Structures are given as structure tokens and as C-alpha cells.
């Protein structure tokens, strides 16, 4: 991406043209935390005239230097965000998108800033949130049901046709990812074999968020302010989102609060079903939790390779390379629980 000064000038010109403003001034660039896959920057925009007349805090979302497999383009994520916004799902209002590398050096989109806490560890562990977690969990159940009911219009044609067997499609993708690594991963192989053997009758695919978890929403004392990070949205079995949300990886150490580190599965399932979501089959959730641990294992290896092979000297990426053992622990434990009839 361009250096700050050039980026400011280029973006001011872009904003003027996109919003129809007479003038645009940008200041206060700050990189937002999180986002190992994408970069997010907040800034203050002072606009005169046009659609954004006045002062606003905006967020620019752009590609990280190296992308992960299955991560959607910024233009596609922008279209998904617009669809969610139109459907009434709480998301930051999407404003403008550019795929023109001449503007800041990479594709990007702009959205309005939304206040809230994205830090999953804080929401799960801090006493400040103790009394508020049940409400957050209920709202998340409702919001996930709303996401799974989102209409898929023509502007989401890039999603393609829904797969007739979402689990088979997902396993094929994970096999493809696993084959990309130079080193052997027996527990990942074990998970893939188990997932192939235990596959249920195909579920009807719906639009799934793909990364619906604690850490990917903005929480406030009043509830959920926004669902973030739509880059993995895809057709899938709705239980896949639920399994990912309940996966141990996203409980931030509160392992006994099985639904996102916030509360019980039952409370989450009830809220989802009461909001019009499909009837949840706990065995399917168990299946997708094994898949979730496999997915996180594979993503961790992809992040590792950004460090090992991609030249990104990031502490976070390097340490993520040491996390597959956590996923392997969970895969073996979940498969064993199923064999013992505990799923």
C-alpha cells in the first residue's frame, strides 16, 4: 500500500469523486488491531458537499500482503456487506469500493466506523462483560438466523450455484488445502477420513458467514453493534457456521462456555431457532466442530507459511504456526467422544 502521505492524497481524490463532494480532507490514520488476513485502517474524513457531507469516521479495508486460500476479494466482500446491510443484519454501512490499484496500490473498500469492542478475549474474560454475555449470545443467535435467511441477489452471482452436497464440497476444498503443504499432517488426514465417513445426508446450502465467531463482532453494552469480516462467506450447511461459533478455538479460554465463550449451546440454539433459523441437529454441529478444528488447523498452517515462505516477519504469524497442536488435540478428542457415543 502507498505511504501515508500519498495514500491520503489519493484517497481524498477518490472520496471526492465517489461521493460527489466539493472537497475532502483526511487525517488521523490508525491501523485497527486484528485482521491477520486483511488490513483495516480508520481515519477521519471532513467532507464538503456530496453524499457524505460533514465529518465522519471511516474504515478502509484492504488486502494483507499475502492472502489466504478461500479469502474473497475486497469487491466480493463489499457486495456481501451490502447484501447484509440491505437485509437488516447489523454491519458497518458499506460506502465505496475500488479495485483500481492506481488509487492506493491495492483493492479496497470503505465503510462507516462502528463503535464497539471486537477483542474476543476481553468480551469472554473481562468481568465487565459478565452480566452482558447472555444478551450478546441471544442476539448472536438471532443474527445468525437472519444471515442464514439472507436473499442472494444477482450482485452475489460470484457465489455460484449452491452445492448439492455442501459437506462434500467443503471436504474437497480442505483436501486441496492439505495437499499444498510440504510436510505431513497425520491428524489432519485422520480428520478428513473421519469427516468423509461420517458425512450425513446433504443439507440444503444457505449463505453462511463463514467466520461467525467471537472476535468477529463488535459488542457494546447495549448488544451487538456489527457483524464483521465477511471474507469467507459462502454457500454451506448452516450447521457449519454453528460448529465454527461453538468450536473450542473461539472460546478464548472459557472452554466451559461452549457457545463462543459466552454461554451455553442450548441458549444459543434456542435463540437461533426462535428467530426462524432451522432446527439445529446437535450431531451435525458435532460433525462441523471436527471440521472447524480441521479448518483452523489448515488456516494456521497457511498463516505459518506466510512466515516461513512468504517473508512476512510477523510474530503473530510465526506463533500461529505453533497452534496446530491445539486443533489436533480437539480433533482427536472429538473423534474419540463420537466413537464412545458421547457426541
Amino acid at each position: 500500500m502507498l505511504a501515508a502521505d500519498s495514500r491520503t492524497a489519493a484517497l481524498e481524490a477518490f472520496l471526492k469523486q465517489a461521493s460527489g463532494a466539493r472537497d475532502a480532507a483526511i487525517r488521523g490514520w490508525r491501523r485497527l488491531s486484528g485482521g491477520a488476513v486483511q488490513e483495516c485502517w480508520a481515519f477521519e474524513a471532513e467532507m464538503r458537499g456530496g453524499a457524505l457531507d460533514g465529518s465522519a469516521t471511516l474504515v478502509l479495508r484492504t488486502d494483507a500482503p499475502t492472502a489466504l486460500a478461500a479469502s474473497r476479494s475486497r469487491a466480493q466482500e463489499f457486495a456481501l456487506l451490502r447484501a447484509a446491510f440491505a437485509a437488516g443484519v447489523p454491519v458497518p454501512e458499506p460506502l465505496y469500493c475500488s479495485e483500481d490499484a492506481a488509487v492506493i496500490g491495492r483493492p479496497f473498500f470503505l465503510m462507516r466506523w462502528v463503535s464497539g469492542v471486537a477483542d474476543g478475549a476481553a468480551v469472554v474474560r473481562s468481568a465487565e462483560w459478565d452480566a452482558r454475555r447472555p444478551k450478546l449470545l441471544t442476539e448472536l443467535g438471532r443474527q445468525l438466523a437472519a444471515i442464514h435467511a439472507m436473499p442472494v441477489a444477482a450482485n452475489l452471482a460470484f457465489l455460484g450455484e449452491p452445492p448439492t452436497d455442501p459437506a462434500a464440497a467443503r471436504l474437497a476444498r480442505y483436501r486441496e488445502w492439505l495437499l499444498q503443504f510440504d510436510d505431513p499432517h497425520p491428524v489432519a488426514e485422520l480428520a478428513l477420513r473421519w469427516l468423509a465417513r461420517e458425512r450425513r445426508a446433504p443439507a440444503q446450502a444457505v449463505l453462511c458467514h463463514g467466520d461467525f465467531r467471537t472476535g468477529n463482532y463488535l459488542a457494546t453494552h447495549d448488544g451487538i453493534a456489527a457483524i464483521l469480516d465477511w471474507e469467507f462467506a459462502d454457500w454451506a450447511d448452516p450447521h457449519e457456521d454453528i460448529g465454527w461459533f461453538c468450536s473450542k478455538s473461539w472460546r478464548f479460554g472459557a472452554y466451559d462456555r461452549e457457545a463462543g465463550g459466552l454461554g451455553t449451546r442450548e441458549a444459543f440454539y434456542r435463540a437461533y431457532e426462535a428467530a426462524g433459523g432451522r432446527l439445529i441437529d446437535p450431531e451435525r454441529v458435532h460433525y462441523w466442530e471436527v471440521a472447524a478444528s480441521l479448518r483452523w488447523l489448515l488456516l494456521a498452517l497457511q498463516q505459518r507459511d506466510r512466515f516461513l515462505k512468504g517473508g512476512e516477519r510477523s510474530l503473530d504469524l510465526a506463533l500461529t504456526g505453533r497452534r496446530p497442536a491445539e486443533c489436533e488435540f480437539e480433533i482427536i478428542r472429538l473423534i474419540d467422544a463420537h466413537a464412545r457415543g458421547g457426541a
Partner: protein
Amino acid sequence: MRDLPSGPELESLAREWEERGIDGLPPKERATAAAMIERCRAIARREAAAGTDALAPIRAALAALYVGDQSKHFAQLAAEIRSGALDAPSARRDRVLALLWSLTLQKLRESNPRFLAAHGYDPGAR
């Protein structure tokens, strides 16, 4: 068999970040970077302390399952699982699962002993 980057690579990265300096970062990012530097070092220390001896029982278990070049046994294990030969319950499958479980616990002792402790395992136990 261990996850990567290796302990020495993590130690080298930690040193690189310290030399580059993190004082110019905003307070929250500085604290996060400092914690990650320490975590790299802690993993490197635990891995060095465990040494190659910690994996000797796993290598021996692999050698009992596969013949030929020892450096290829782990890949042979992955290939056997992929082939489906270990899908059905069998004594061999049980041995493989026990081996993988032991390896996973050892990797966690080095990479994330808190995770093990949170699941009721003594990270110091062998």
C-alpha cells in the same frame, strides 16, 4: 514432527523484533508485541529443554510400525491414514491413535502448556 517455526527460528524472530525496537508502537500494540516476543522465547526455551529425547518414544513407536528410512516414517503414517487403511477399528489403528495423542501432548507441552493445564493435564508430566 514438531510444529514450525522451530524454537531457534522463534528465538531469532524475537531477537529481530527487539533489535528493531517496539518502543515506537502505540501502547496496546507494544504490549501485544512484547507478550508475543516473550511467548516466542518461552516456546524456544521449552523446546530446547525437551530436546530430541522428548520425541524418542514417538520415533520408537513409528519405527515399530514402519520400515526403512526413519525420516520418512511420519510421512508414511500420514499416507497410511489417507489411504483409508486405518479407518476400521484395529490394534494398529489404536497404536497409531496413541502415538498421535502422545505427540500432540508433547507439542502442547512446548507450545502451549496453559492449554494443557486448562484441560486437566499436567504440562510437566510425561
